[in-house]
C-alpha cells in the first residue's frame, strides 16, 4: 500500500471581491435602512454587514458575492423594497463553456480548498453536450463502494507517465533479471500546464511551479520561460521545446526529469537528440488533438516516447476542423485505437484543453486518459476572470501581475486539493481504488445515447432527434 | 364705573356701528387723531388694531388712550401672538386705568405675513383663553393665578369670528365656545358672501347664541376690482362671490369706488334685516374718510 497521499489546503482569501452572483435592487427613497427589523442587519449570512462599513469607501455598486439567495430580505423587509437580481457582471462572466458558475466555484475551491457541497438536488439541465452527457456509475449491494472520502479506506490516485517494461525476465532463482526501469509517477492524474494566454508574469508561473512541486505533480512550461528562479522546482517542471530549440536548453534538459517536444517532422532525430543530452529523460510529445491524433498516437507508441500530451481547444473540442468533436469522444477514440492495436500499454496519454471541473478528470480517465492537463483553471484559481482584456493589452482587473508567490501557490494547491477530493468521491462511488484502474473503464460510465436507447427505446421507439435535442 | 357707549348702545337694543383705525407705523400720534376725527360722531366706538397683519405699529393701548383723551370710545384689540399671559393681564389692567372700556380678544395674524417674519411668536394662551381671562378679571376680580385684584377691569369683551373660513360646520360651535368663555360681542370678518353669512346667523340663532352675544357684521367697501380680486384670491378666510367681482369690473375705473360704496350700502341694508344681528363694524381700510358717508347713506346717522 503506498503512503497515503493527501493535499493539505490552507484557506487563502481572495485579494479582490469576487464577482458575486446576486445583486439587490432596493429603493432607498422608501427606506433609509434604520428599521430595527432591518433585514440587512438580520441577514442570516451577514452579507450586508460588510456593506454597512464598506459603504463609505465604495466607488461603484457592490454586488453580493456571499449572498445565498434565501430571499428573506426580499420577503421580510418591512417596506418590501428589496428585489434580487443577477449581478450583471456575473451574467457576462465567462462564456458558454467556462460558465460563470464554474469560475465562481473554482474561485471558492482555490479560496478554501474544500469541495463544493450544497443542499437540494442537482440544479442543472437533464443532460448536455460533452462531459455532461456522461454519468459515472456507482456500486451498490453486489459490488460495494469504497469508503475513501473520510480516509476509512485508501484510494490511490497515483498514475505513471513513464513507459512500462513490456515483460520482465527472471533469473532461475526467481529473482528479477531485467533492470528495474525508472518510473515517473505523479500522485494524482492531473498535470499543470502553462496557459496559452493570461498575465503570465514571472510570479504567476512560479506560483504554478511551486504548486506543482508542492502537490508532487508536474508543470508543463515553455522552456523559454525558464529562469534560475525556477530551479527549486526543477524536478516538477516539464520544459516544452521544439526540435529547433531543444539544443538551446541542454542544461535545462539535463536537470529535468521529463521534457515535452512538439510533434512535427524530424521528431525521431530530436528524440535521439534529447536522449543524448539526458539518457534518463522521460519524453512527452505534445501534439494537437485533431483528426490525425489517433493515428499519430499509434505511431508514437512504438517509439521511445513515454507520454503523449494531446491538446484540444480551450472549449474541450477537437482542433483543426469546422465540426469539432468533443474531448470525451476524442479521448475514447485515441484510447480505443491504441487498444485495438494492442499498444495501449506502451504509452501514456495526457489530454488537455477545456478541462474545467474535477468531474472532467474522472470522466476523461474513464474515457481512456491516463491523466489530464489543466491550464485555465490555474489562472482562475488566481482570480482570473477570463475577461481576456490582457490579450488586448489592457490592464488586468485583478492585477494578476502583482500576485505574491505564496498566495498564488496556495490558491492553486487548494484547487488541486479540492479536485483530488472530488476525484475520490467519484472513485469511491464507483468502487474503484486505483486511478490506474479507472483508465478506459467505460463500463463504469453511462452515456446519454445508450441510456436513451436501452431504457427509453422499448417505451418510446426510435429517437427522432440527434444530440441532446 | 360707568358702562361704555358701545355697551350702552347694544344694551339698549340699538343697531350699533363701529369702525376701525390702524395706528401709525411711527410715534406720531397726529395720524391717529386725524383718522379719529373723521369718525367722530358717526360711530359708537372705534376699533384700534394691535399690530394688525403683524406689521409693527404704535401700540393699540396707547392709540386707544389718545382716543379716550379725544373723548371717543375705543375698542382695544389685543392679540395673543406677542404677549404671554403676564403681559396680557398687565396690559388689560393698564388699559382699563387709562379709560379703555372695550377690548377685542384675538389670536392675531401670523407673524410670517408681517414686517417681522423672523419673530418668535408667543401664543401662550389663545383668544378664547384671553376672553375667559378678561371675564374672570372683570366678574370675579381675580387674575389667572386667582389673585384678588384691588380694582377689577370691567371690560366689555369682544372677539372676532369668521363665518367664511373653513370648516364651516364648526364655525358656530366655535362661536358658542367663545360665548361660553364669556364674550359680550362679536365682530365678524367682512361680509360679501351674504348667503353663507345668513346661514351662519341662522345656525347661531338656532343655538340661541344671538340671545347671548351681540353680533356685529364686518363690512369693507371695495375700492376697486383689483382689490376685490386680490382679497378673494390672497386673503385666507375671505370669500367674495364671483358676481360681485364681475360687478366691480363692470364699471369704469373712476366709478369703481362709488360702486364699492354702493355695494357696501346694499350689504348693510341686507344685514339690518337679519334677525339677531346687533350692528355693523366698518373696516374701511385706509379709507376712513368714507365711513361717515357710508353711515349717513345707510341711514344710521346720527348715532345715539
Amino acid at each position: 500500500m503506498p503512503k497515503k497521499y493527501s493535499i493539505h489546503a490552507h484557506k487563502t482569501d481572495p485579494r479582490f471581491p469576487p464577482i458575486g452572483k446576486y445583486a439587490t435592487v432596493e429603493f432607498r427613497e422608501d427606506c433609509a435602512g434604520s428599521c430595527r427589523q432591518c433585514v440587512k442587519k438580520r441577514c442570516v449570512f451577514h452579507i450586508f454587514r460588510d456593506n454597512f462599513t464598506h459603504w463609505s469607501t465604495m466607488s461603484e455598486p457592490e454586488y453580493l458575492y456571499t449572498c445565498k439567495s434565501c430571499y428573506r430580505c426580499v420577503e421580510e423587509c418591512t417596506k418590501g423594497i428589496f428585489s434580487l437580481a443577477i449581478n450583471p457582471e456575473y451574467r457576462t462572466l465567462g462564456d458558454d463553456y467556462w460558465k460563470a458558475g464554474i469560475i465562481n466555484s473554482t474561485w471558492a475551491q482555490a479560496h478554501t480548498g474544500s469541495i463544493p457541497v450544497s443542499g437540494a438536488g442537482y440544479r442543472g439541465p437533464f443532460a448536455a453536450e460533452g462531459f455532461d452527457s456522461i454519468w459515472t456509475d456507482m456500486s451498490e449491494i453486489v459490488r460495494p463502494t469504497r469508503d475513501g472520502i473520510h480516509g476509512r479506506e485508501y484510494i490511490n490516485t497515483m498514475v505513471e507517465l513513464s513507459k512500462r517494461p513490456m515483460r520482465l525476465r527472471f533469473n532461475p532463482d526467481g529473482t528479477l533479471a531485467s533492470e528495474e526501469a525508472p518510473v515517473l509517477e505523479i500522485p494524482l492524474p492531473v498535470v499543470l500546464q502553462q496557459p496559452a494566454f493570461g498575465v503570465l508574469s514571472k510570479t504567476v508561473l512560479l506560483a504554478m511551479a511551486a504548486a506543482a512541486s508542492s502537490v508532487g505533480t508536474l508543470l508543463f512550461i515553455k522552456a523559454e520561460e525558464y529562469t534560475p528562479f525556477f530551479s527549486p522546482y526543477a524536478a516538477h517542471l516539464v520544459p516544452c521545446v521544439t526540435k529547433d530549440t531543444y539544443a538551446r536548453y541542454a542544461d535545462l534538459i539535463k536537470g529535468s526529469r521529463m521534457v515535452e517536444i512538439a510533434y512535427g517532422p524530424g521528431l525521431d532525430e530530436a528524440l535521439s537528440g534529447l536522449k543524448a543530452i539526458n539518457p534518463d529523460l522521460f519524453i512527452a510529445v505534445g501534439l494537437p488533438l485533431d483528426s490525425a491524433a489517433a493515428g499519430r498516437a499509434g505511431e508514437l507508441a512504438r517509439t521511445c516516447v513515454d507520454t503523449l500530451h494531446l491538446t484540444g481547444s480551450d472549449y474541450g473540442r477537437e482542433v483543426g476542423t469546422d465540426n469539432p468533436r468533443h474531448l470525451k469522444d476524442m479521448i475514447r477514440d485515441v484510447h480505443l485505437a491504441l487498444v485495438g492495436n494492442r499498444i495501449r500499454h506502451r504509452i501514456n496519454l495526457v489530454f488537455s484543453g477545456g478541462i474545467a471541473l474535477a468531474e472532467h478528470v474522472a470522466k476523461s480517465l474513464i474515457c481512456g486518459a491516463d491523466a489530464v492537463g489543466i491550464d485555465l483553471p490555474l489562472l482562475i484559481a488566481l482570480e482570473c476572470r477570463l475577461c481576456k482584456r490582457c490579450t488586448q493589452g489592457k490592464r488586468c482587473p485583478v492585477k494578476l501581475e502583482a500576485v505574491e508567490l505564496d498566495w498564488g501557490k496556495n490558491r492553486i494547491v487548494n484547487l488541486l486539493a479540492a479536485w483530488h477530493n472530488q476525484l475520490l468521491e467519484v472513485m469511491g462511488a464507483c468502487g474503484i481504488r486505483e486511478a490506474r484502474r479507472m483508465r478506459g473503464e467505460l463500463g463504469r460510465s453511462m452515456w446519454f445515447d445508450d441510456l436513451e436507447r436501452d431504457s427509453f427505446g422499448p417505451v418510446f421507439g426510435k429517437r427522432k432527434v440527434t444530440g441532446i435535442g | 364705573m360707568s358702562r361704555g357707549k358701545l355697551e350702552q348702545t347694544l344694551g339698549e337694543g340699538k343697531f350699533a356701528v363701529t369702525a376701525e383705525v390702524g395706528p401709525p407705523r411711527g410715534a406720531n400720534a397726529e395720524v391717529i387723531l386725524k383718522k379719529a376725527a373723521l369718525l367722530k360722531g358717526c360711530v359708537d366706538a372705534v376699533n384700534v388694531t394691535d399690530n394688525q397683519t403683524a406689521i409693527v405699529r404704535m401700540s393699540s393701548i396707547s392709540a386707544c388712550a389718545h382716543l379716550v383723551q379725544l373723548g371717543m370710545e375705543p375698542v382695544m384689540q389685543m392679540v395673543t401672538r406677542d404677549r404671554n399671559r403676564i403681559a396680557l393681564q398687565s396690559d388689560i389692567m393698564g388699559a382699563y386705568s387709562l379709560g379703555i372700556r372695550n377690548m377685542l380678544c384675538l389670536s392675531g395674524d401670523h407673524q410670517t405675513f408681517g414686517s417681522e417674519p423672523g419673530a418668535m411668536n408667543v401664543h401662550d394662551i389663545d383668544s378664547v383663553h384671553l376672553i375667559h381671562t378678561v371675564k374672570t378679571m372683570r366678574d370675579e376680580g381675580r387674575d389667572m393665578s386667582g389673585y384678588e385684584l384691588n380694582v377689577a377691569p370691567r371690560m366689555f369683551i369682544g372677539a372676532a369670528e369668521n363665518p367664511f373660513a373653513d370648516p364651516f360646520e364648526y364655525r358656530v360651535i366655535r362661536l358658542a365656545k367663545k360665548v361660553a368663555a364669556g364674550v359680550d360681542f362679536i365682530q365678524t370678518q367682512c361680509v360679501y358672501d351674504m348667503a353663507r353669512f345668513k346661514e351662519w346667523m341662522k345656525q347661531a340663532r338656532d343655538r340661541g347664541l344671538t340671545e347671548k352675544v351681540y353680533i356685529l357684521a364686518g363690512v369693507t367697501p371695495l375700492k376697486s376690482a383689483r382689490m376685490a380680486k386680490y382679497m378673494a384670491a390672497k386673503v385666507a378666510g375671505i370669500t367674495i362671490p364671483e358676481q360681485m367681482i364681475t360687478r366691480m369690473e363692470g364699471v369704469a375705473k373712476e366709478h369703481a369706488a362709488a360702486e364699492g360704496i354702493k355695494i357696501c350700502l346694499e350689504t348693510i341694508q341686507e344685514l339690518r334685516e337679519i334677525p339677531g344681528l346687533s350692528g355693523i363694524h366698518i373696516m374701511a381700510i385706509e379709507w376712513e374718510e368714507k365711513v361717515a358717508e357710508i353711515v349717513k347713506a345707510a341711514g344710521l346717522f346720527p348715532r345715539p
Partner: protein
Amino acid sequence: MKKVKSKVRCKGKQQLPEVVQTPSRYRNPIGKFLVKRNAKCVSCGLCAKLCPYGVHVRSGKYTQPMRPLEHKCIGTKCQANDFYCVKRCPQHALSVKLNPILDTIGDYRWSSEMILAHWHMAETGTLPSGELEYRLGYSNGGFDKIRFRIPDPKEYLDIPDEEIDTSICLNKRNDGRPVRMISHPCYGGGMSFGSTSLSVLVGRARAAKRLNSFTCTGEGGYPDAFVPYRDNIITQVATGLFGVREETLLHTPMIEFKYAQGAKPGLGGHLLGDKVTPEVAKIRETVVGSSLFSPFPFHSVYSVEDHKKHLDWVKEVNPRALVSVKVSTPSDADMVAVGSYYAGANVIHFDGSYGGTGAAPDIAKKNIAMPIEYAIPKVHRFLVAEGVRDEMCFMASGGIRNAMDVAKAIALGADGAVIGTADLIALECVRCSNCESGRGCARSIATTDAELGKQISEEYTEQRLVNMYSAWRRQWCELLRQYGMRSIKELVGRSDLLVNMDYLDEEERQAYQPTPKKKLVL
C-alpha cells in the same frame, strides 16, 4: 406493455382531508408579477373592492392602503377583466408587471414558476391560474420531455374526485405481513432530525397521518415527538445506524434500509458539526458539535446474501413491519431490484441521481448514477420479465417534482413516488441549496438552529402539505378521468399513454406543449 393488476383494491369513497388557507410565513410573498402602487394613491379603496383574488387589501379601519399581495395577482391576463385594477384606478396609481426576480429563483429542474405554483398550492389547496407552468421545468430531458398522449374524449369518465381511487398498496407479497394502503401514490422521503428542523419533521408526520400516508425518519434517529404519529412514520436504517434502536424498529409500520441516496450515491451522509446540537447529539448518540459521517457502504453488507441477512434481522425484530429497500440507480439497477425481491423486501425504492439532499458534493449530485427516468422502465421491465413485478411495490424518487412527474413515473412502471423536495417547497423552500451553510437553512426548514428553527410550526407544515397534496390529487383525478380510469393503480406501467418529444416526428410533436427551454444563469 403488460398491464399490471393490483391484487388489492381500495373500496368506497376516499376521505379527503380539509384544505385550510395557510398563508406564507413571510410579509412579502414573491409572485410572478409586481404590483406597485405609487404616491398618487388616495386610498379610495376601489381596488380592494374590485379584486376578487385578494391582491389589494384594506385592513379594518386602517386608512393607509396595504402593500399589494403580489403573489395572488393573476397578472397581465387580467387586462380583459372589468375589475382590472390598473385600468380602474381613478388615480392611475397602480401598475402590474412581470416580476424580474423570477430570473433569480429556481433552476433548470425546479423552475421559478413551478416553485411559485407549489407555494400557491400549499397556501390554497387549489391549482394556480394558467399563467404559472407547474408541470414542466427547463431541464430539457427526462420528465420534461415526456407527455401524456392526447386522450380520446370518448374515454372520459365523468365521475367526481371522491370516486377516484388514488391509493396504492405497499405490501403485495402475501407474506403474512399487513396489507398497508396509503391514500396517495406517494409518501414522504427520509429527512433526518439534524438535517431538518423538528417542527418540520413532526409537521410532516402529522400531515402523513391526515393524508393516510407515511413519512420517513431519515438517518437521524427517532425523536420522542414522533411517537404520537408512529403509525405513519417509516424508520430508516442507514449505514450510520444513527438512533436505530429496537424500540424504534418496533414503533414502525415499515422499516427502510437505506443503501444509497440519489443525490450522493455511493457516499455516506454528512452532517456538519454546526448542526449537531445537544438534541441532535442525544438522539444520534454522539457528541455535540462534531461532524457526523455515515460510512459507506453498510460495512456488514458486501453481497446479496449479506443483504438478505440484514432484512431477515429486522423482520425478526418486528414481524408486523414491512421492509423497504432504498437504493440508488446504478447501471445494474434491475439486478438490484430482483436481488431485493429475493431478499424479501416488500418495497423497492429507487432514488435517482437528481434527488434532493441536505448536503452533498456537487460533483456527486450532477454526475453519479442515472436519472430516475431511465431507471424506472428498466427496473419495471426486468421485474415483469422475472415474474415478480406483481409482488413488489416499486417506489421511485429523485427528481420527481410534481403531480405530473408522479403520474409519469407510475406510467413508466413505478407504483408510486417518494417525495422530499416538493414537501419542502410547500414549506416555502426556495431551493437556494444552502441547507448546510452557516446556521443552516435561512428559511428555517433545514436547520437545527434554535432561533431559526422556531420560525416554522408543526401546524403550518401539516396544513401546507395537506393543501399541496390536495392540489396534486386534483391533477391525478383529472388525468385518470381522461383515460377512463377509476384507480391510479390502473396507470402502473401504462407507458403506452406516454410520449417523448424526442421520439416524435415534427408534426406529431405539434400536438403537445413544447418543451420549455430557457437559458438560466447558474
